[in-house]
């Protein structure tokens, strides 16, 4: 019972400090290539994966382009230079042969996912979520394959897709995020080792949530996965992505690319709960999360919705975007980003309105605590042909403490007089008055803060699938612990 009337932690500064529960290392033999980056390394990756020629060619083109690029430093983030020659670009758990079922997966790996609360076996039996688990660089298991196949849905690792569906891969790979897009996307194109691939055929409503779970395990390894989702005409899919990594003192690089393509009347919902290791309270270690995510509403009335809850990583740069090309297409972005300790998050979205009557909604909730730095960066562009397009942006920051910071940098570029853009931003804190009111009603300060923080994020949580919303809420509480008292 809290006997202390004015707890020293009455200021919101002191509350941070729960162990990162996903921070263990799995002892498993891995097959890695030497650190460093060269054309030879890339040939080796491609060879290990037995890729067709078009893939190697694409990788090499990307690599040659990457050599001409400079690492960007425009985001509101400070970090020491990354030595790209010290990174291991390919690491895979050693597997002897091709797996036919989960029973053949290394039990150590299955235990890893169980420890993380994602029991692949359990998933297969009970829940209605199909999981593709990516461990370091490669996909280790995909559940529910057969059931999905009955509907004609392809859900597999990227490597398998390259082998089994090369035409689809060749048609759509890089069509939304070309390798020339940016420094990290280009690096990814050159070295990416695996990821998830998903194709929903015409008119099919995917009967379950599809999910990829990313885990970085090996030390000094970069993770460069690539996800490609194609929703054919009239189809619907909801996709979940979760991420964790062990606690390590050095920073690890995660430079993923996600491409979504929605054709006429297709709907894609992509949700992320990102809990990469954020570093310790002094800012040592943690994942650099430099990710390119973009969806293309290629067809009319297509809809792409990004929902993200970001509580992890030392540094996050991430702008899940939607290109609204088809007339009447819809883009949505719902985000909660929390930074505590010395975390830096620079995140937001781009809504590029090209088609007529395209609509977009942006709801961004940033929470900064400790020495956390939270930046919203967004672009809403109304192209010349975007007649009667609409955007509404709501961008709120919640500040907890005297050393955190919140920045809001939206950009609006409008070239169409029939289009309408609205942007609102507010900055709030939890006041001592609110805290006292709750405490007077018998609610303990931590519970009161959780309640208010969850209230602040409610608009975003309600966009998440139910199980994920609960998980997100818990994650937020754990990540905030110690921030307030």
């Amino acid at each position, binding site marked *: 019972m809290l006997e202390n009337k004015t*707890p020293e932690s009455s200021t919101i500064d002191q509350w941070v400090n729960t162990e990162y529960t996903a921070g263990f290392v799995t002892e498993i033999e891995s097959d890695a290539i030497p650190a460093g980056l060269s054309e030879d390394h890339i040939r080796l990756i491609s060879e290990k994966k037995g890729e067709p020629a078009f893939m190697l060619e694409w990788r090499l083109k990307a690599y040659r382009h990457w050599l001409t690029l400079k690492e960007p430093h425009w985001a509101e983030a400070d970090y020491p230079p990354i030595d790209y020659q010290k990174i291991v670009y390919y690491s895979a758990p050693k597997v002897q042969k091709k797996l036919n079922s989960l029973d053949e997966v290394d039990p150590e790996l299955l235990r890893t996912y169980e420890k993380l609360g994602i029991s692949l076996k359990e998933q297969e039996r009970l829940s209605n979520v199909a999981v593709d688990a990516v461990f370091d660089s490669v996909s280790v298991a995909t559940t529910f394959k057969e059931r999905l196949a009955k509907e004609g849905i392809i859900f597999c690792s990227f490597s398998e897709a390259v082998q089994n569906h090369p035409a689809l891969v060749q048609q759509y790979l890089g069509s939304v995020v070309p390798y020339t897009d940016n420094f990290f996307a280009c690096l990814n194109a050159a070295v990416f080792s695996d990821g998830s691939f998903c194709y929903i055929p015409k008119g099919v409503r995917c009967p379950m949530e599809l999910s990829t779970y990313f885990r970085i395990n090996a030390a000094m390894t970069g993770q460069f996965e690539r996800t490609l989702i194609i929703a054919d005409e009239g189809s619907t899919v909801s996709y979940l992505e979760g991420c964790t990594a062990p606690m390590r003192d050095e920073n690890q690089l995660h430079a993923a690319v996600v491409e979504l393509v929605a054709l006429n009347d297709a709907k894609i919902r992509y949700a992320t709960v990102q809990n990469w290791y954020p570093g310790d309270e002094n800012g040592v270690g943690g994942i650099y999360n430099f990710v390119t995510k973009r969806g293309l509403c290629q067809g009319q009335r297509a809809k792409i919705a990004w929902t993200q809850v970001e509580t992890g990583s030392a540094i996050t740069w991430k702008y899940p975007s939607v290109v609204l090309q088809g007339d009447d297409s819809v883009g949505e972005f719902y985000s909660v980003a929390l930074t505590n300790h010395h975390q830096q998050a620079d995140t937001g979205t781009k809504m590029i309105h090209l088609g007529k009557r395209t609509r977009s909604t942006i709801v961004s909730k940033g929470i900064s605590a400790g020495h956390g730095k939270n930046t919203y960066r967004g672009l809403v562009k109304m192209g010349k042909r975007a007649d009667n397009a609409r955007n509404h942006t709501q961008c709120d920051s919640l500040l907890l403490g005297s050393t955190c910071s919140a920045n809001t940098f939206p950009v609006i570029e409008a070239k169409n007089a029939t289009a309408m853009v609205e942007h609102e931003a507010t900055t709030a804190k939890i006041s001592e008055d609110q805290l006292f009111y709750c405490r007077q009603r018998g609610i303990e300060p931590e519970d009161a803060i959780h309640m208010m923080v969850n209230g602040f994020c409610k608009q975003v949580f309600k966009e998440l699938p139910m199980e994920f919303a609960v998980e997100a809420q818990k994650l937020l509480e754990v990540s905030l612990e110690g921030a307030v008292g």
Partner: protein
Amino acid sequence: MNRSQAPLLHIESLFATVQEKPILKGVDLTVGAGQVHAIMGPNGSGKTTLAKVLAGHPDYQITEGSIRYNGHDTSTWSPEKCAWQGIFLGFQYPVAIPGVSNAQFLRASLNALRKRQGQQPLDAVDFLKITKEKMAMLGMAESLLTRSVNEGFSGGEKKRNEILQMLLLEPRLAILDETDSGLDIDALKIVAQGVNALRNASRSIILITHYQRLLDYIEPDYIHVLSEGKIVHSGDKLLAQTLEAKGYSWLSEAQHVDG
């Protein structure tokens, strides 16, 4: 000492400061179980400070004197402990909490108290049943449950919401800080009805008010006048009428003559 015979609240020469500024300068007050006391007084006399000190507000420091509540010294209690021990403060300006629904807040509060009293938490169904009954009694629209706590509430809605919380939490000592201010006569009657419904032999109520008006509907056992941080006059319910007729200045003059 037999606790049942001791007064519920005994305040002895209480001095308190906020941001090092002295506000209470020797308050003495004894409230017995089942009694209703009214505290009146001009603006800035320390009425709200007294209420906040009793509720354990961390910004208010007790520099001298003591508060004994139900036999305990409360000076080190956190606000939530005061609440768990049955002290309820009805706020003069209830604060808005955006994003947190009224229902969620009320249930969190009620279950926090139940937990300390060794009771099982109420589930959503039972909670709603009890709450809706009490809301009907106060003439509150049920839509107020789904709205954020006090956000965009009218003055009357906020005050009724305070009374609703009091009815749910069933405190032993309720301190109502200017609950009557900003209410029209119909709302005032409903609020009074709520307070009267709660009166019983073991529950005590302190009404802080500016006006006689409220006391027409909730009849106090005692009336005290607080001025410059001290209780300068105490009397029965007739005192309120004298104050209404003659104003507070009469007191200071009277004091002069007495002294």
